[in-house]
């Protein structure tokens, strides 16, 4: 550009401070925003919660295992190594994947009110996983594949129906179609329950309806590890381009984006990581909706900023919810119940808060 004024640099506002001031932040708020953006903080937060959670449980007594016990008690060591570690790791992957997939879907569908559980993706994955168990067997890889196939089907159905609904704005239509498709897959899952063998298959299927990590061992964790880690890496490394896809198709293409190819890739990755975690954890809702919302509230809408924060907060939130699920009662509360309870409450708080904005 030849016409730029020479003085513009002097008036320059740094890109990030600009966003901070945009939401009317004070000096303190700007400092906090720097924290939310700091890579060290984003990595350390879930790791710290993870490390503390190793000692949370109901052995040798409710709530907390003193570190000394771990050093001496052989049973405690086996418990931590064989049960708590794989479980905490899958909670971490679960939260990170659902939050990332939710944030990505919100950008791709240009709709701040969607998440995998609202688009038929999670329910499709649950149905696919249950169907695979009935027809093929319980091998984790097959279950993951079945989950992924039906998760994709759920998404395609929701999207296709939303495009054909003849009233309402895009946000409303997608949410309505998603609710209907989710309900179809949920009832399908209910029907499968009656076809399942009550001794060997039924317990496995029931848990998809509520979600939980109690059956996770290293075997399940290792089955989902490659897909989720690789998928999260793809989403995180290409995150800035999500902003381009959230513009109109024509604008994005005029900016050099291969719109269809890039959207299909990112959507497939989001569905695959969602299906992977659903195949071991069942339907755990709301994480994909509220975590990206909170993240955008904290650092702004630029995907370069809010997606890493979503992954970090999602992992932290899932570990904390699983801690609650494990320790609050002597039995176990299904994880999906905990995340739905907290998630829906937080969501209501966000919706009625005067700073909430979702324009059509």
């Amino acid at each position, binding site marked *: 550009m030849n016409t730029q004024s020479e003085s513009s640099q002097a008036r320059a506002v740094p*890109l990030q401070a600009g966003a901070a001031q945009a939401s009317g932040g004070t000096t303190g708020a700007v400092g906090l925003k720097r924290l939310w953006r700091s890579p060290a903080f984003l990595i350390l937060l879930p790791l710290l919660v993870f490390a503390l959670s190793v000692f949370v449980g109901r052995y040798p007594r409710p709530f907390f295992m003193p570190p000394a016990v771990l050093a001496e008690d052989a049973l405690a060591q086996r418990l931590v190594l064989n049960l708590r570690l794989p479980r905490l790791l899958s909670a971490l992957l679960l939260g990170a994947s659902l939050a990332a997939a939710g944030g990505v879907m919100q950008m791709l569908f240009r709709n701040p009110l969607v998440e995998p559980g609202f688009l038929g993706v999670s329910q499709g994955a649950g149905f696919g996983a249950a169907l695979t168990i009935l027809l093929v067997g319980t091998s984790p890889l097959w279950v993951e594949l079945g989950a992924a196939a039906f998760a994709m089907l759920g998404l395609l159905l929701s999207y296709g129906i939303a495009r054909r609904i003849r009233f309402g704005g895009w946000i409303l239509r997608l949410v309505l179609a998603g609710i209907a498709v989710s309900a179809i897959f949920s009832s399908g899952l209910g029907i499968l329950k009656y076809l399942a063998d009550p001794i060997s298959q039924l317990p496995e299927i029931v848990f998809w309806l509520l979600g939980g990590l109690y059956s996770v061992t290293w075997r399940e964790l290792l089955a989902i590890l490659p897909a989720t880690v690789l998928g999260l890496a793809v989403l995180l490394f290409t995150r800035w381009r999500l902003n381009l896809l959230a513009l109109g198709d024509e*604008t994005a293409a005029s900016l050099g984006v291969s719109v269809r190819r890039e959207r299909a890739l990112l959507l497939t990755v989001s569905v695959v990581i969602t299906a992977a975690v659903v195949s071991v954890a069942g339907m755990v809702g709301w994480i994909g909706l509220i975590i990206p919302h909170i993240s955008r509230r904290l650092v702004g809408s630029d995907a370069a900023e809010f997606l890493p924060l979503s992954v970090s907060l999602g992992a932290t939130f899932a570990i904390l919810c699983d801690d609650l699920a494990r320790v609050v009662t002597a039995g176990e509360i299904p994880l999906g119940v905990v995340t739905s309870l907290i998630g829906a409450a937080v969501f209501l708080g966000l919706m009625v808060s005067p700073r909430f904005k979702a324009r059509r």
Partner: protein
Amino acid sequence: MSTSALPVAASPMPGEAMLRVEGLGFRYEAGRPAALEGVSFEIMAGTITAILGPNGAGKTTLLHVLLGLRKAASGQIWLAGRSLGSYTRRELSQWMGLVPQSEYLPFDYSVLEYVVLGRAPYLGLLDLPGEEDARVAREALATVGVDGLAARPIPELSGGELQLVLIARALAQQPRVLLLDEPSSHLDLSNRNATLRVMKQLRRAGTTILFSTHDPDAAALAADNLVLMKQGRILHAGPVAETFTSEKLSETYGMRIEVLRSDGMYLVRAADGLQEPIQSSV
């Protein structure tokens, strides 16, 4: 040009053709009438051309075909002497920037975050925009005169401010050709003029500009050349002095339009069916 790769082809000098279109045809669906048919014209580097015509004349379609967003069914387009099809999508986005008619934004970006998106043509799949990109974006904002808005959230902008920010985003692409789709149609007169002023200022700096409008006033105020379109065809094309006439505008709009010249300016009277003498009050 302060940054980024130089264009693959040499940029045409003023007086040379930047865009040449021959026999362009396009239809959205088989069986429906053609949205474009036999469209041919030439745009010289460093000029402003207005595509003028009533709603539904095919103006937006033509812009999209020129940008390679839609594939023409027939005809040829040359950009800087090279066939449009020989450019990659990324190359094209470094040559031509689009200012869309409107943009639906579901998320609250700051103005600067939004304008930096215009740097996409120069960033790889895994890249994040850097200091240099932020600098180009700020310069683009300064060029259109709204650098003070950098930190503001997009939803808080007025219509006129948003239009200038949309232009700034296209300028961050550092394009040789700027295409604007109805840049002034939803603006009040003062904001319309601010937008047209920016276009003229960019032309002086060497940018080739093509904009669509259904407003003859805006076309006469800003353009050097006109392309008059109706129902997917070009009726007339050429310098404003030759094409901005009562006869040609009336033909384009299918109604009686009178063009008057006064002090070297054009006055448009389009009062067909509304003519009543002004009642003088007693």
